[in-house]
């Protein structure tokens, strides 16, 4: 009788040690990944959702010419909540992989630096498909390790988050990138797709904030 109890207890202890290492860390949800790819306060009066494809040259242009200024002048002051949405286009062979890496980086708390790196090295990884190498050449080694761990351990969740954004874009008739949706006081307005000049976007944002 005592030996049976010892066997059962041993098995229970072994299970308690082994099972967590098998299951690994908790799986990320789509909502968590969306939040990780968003910048600013959710209480901001304006929400800007940007559907983009990391292999899209106009998305790169938008990012460099407009997005950073929006972050500096509107997001940081709590006027705009900026949400990134992935919309990899079928014409770009590596954009879905890039989106997965971006989501992995976002989960590791490295969204902005990785987004900057992806656009900075767009031509390089766009030609070879070697996104990991391109990111590794820009991100610090410690950060790259974190991104790699996320990419390998949460791959299904990352792909699910990308697909959720694509499904959302399809439901809104997004057909190209970049596509921007501006939501203010519950009303969502799609902007003409394509890179948007910061000056024109600023005029519109200022108008909305005055209302």
């Amino acid at each position, binding site marked *: 009788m005592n030996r049976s109890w010892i066997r059962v207890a041993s098995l229970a202890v072994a299970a308690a040690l082994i099972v967590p290492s098998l299951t690994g860390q908790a799986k990320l949800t789509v909502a968590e990944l969306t939040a990780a790819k968003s910048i600013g306060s959710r209480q901001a009066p304006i929400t800007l959702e940007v559907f983009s494809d990391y292999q899209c040259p106009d*998305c790169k242009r938008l990012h460099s010419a407009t997005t950073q200024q929006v972050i500096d002048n509107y997001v940081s002051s709590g006027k705009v909540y900026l949400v990134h949405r992935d919309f990899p*286009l079928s*014409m770009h062979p590596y954009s879905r992989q890039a989106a997965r890496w971006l989501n992995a980086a976002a989960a590791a708390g490295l969204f902005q630096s990785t987004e900057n790196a992806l656009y900075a090295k767009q031509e390089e990884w766009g030609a070879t498909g070697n996104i990991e190498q391109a990111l590794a050449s820009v991100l610090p080694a410690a950060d790259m390790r974190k991104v790699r761990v996320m990419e390998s351990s949460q791959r299904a969740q990352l792909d699910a988050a990308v697909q959720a954004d694509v499904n959302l874009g399809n439901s809104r008739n997004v*057909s190209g990138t970049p596509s921007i949706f501006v939501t203010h006081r519950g009303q969502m307005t799609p902007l*003409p*797709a*394509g890179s948007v*000049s910061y000056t*024109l976007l600023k005029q519109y944002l200022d*108008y909305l904030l005055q209302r």
Partner: protein
Amino acid sequence: MAAAPPIAVSHPRRITGVLLLVGRAALGAILIFAAYAKLHFNGAWHLRDYNFIFAIGIDSYQMLPLWAVSWLALVLPWTELALGLLLIAGIGLRWVASITTALLVVFMIALARAAILGLAINCGCFGEGSTNPARELILDSVLLLVALAVTVGAFSSHRARRLPA
């Protein structure tokens, strides 16, 4: 002495007149619809902020400085609406048809330029069903032909009315 028989309007002239009337009405309707589409979208009227959205679309042609983009975005929809209504009503046809033709020529030049430069109007990398400058060019060529015909017709009928009886 027997009265002179009435001068009958020739059959071809009548047909031409009907065709021009149809062309004028169609062109007018298209212009009115174009104005409507710029002022009413996303299920609501945007009479106070249509110009901000439209300006972004105009800017994608990369032809004009931003001050001109903003001004054009403000006035163009109302200009289209006025031209459309005047065309249908047949008021000031020579002027209205000429201005409409000139507008279409300018628009076609912008489209052609975008097609040649490979500009993706309103698009960075579009998927299927996207706006294609070349396709728009073909459609607007048809509109321009109609506008030209209406313009020529307007001047011809004005000249015919001024001829002594």
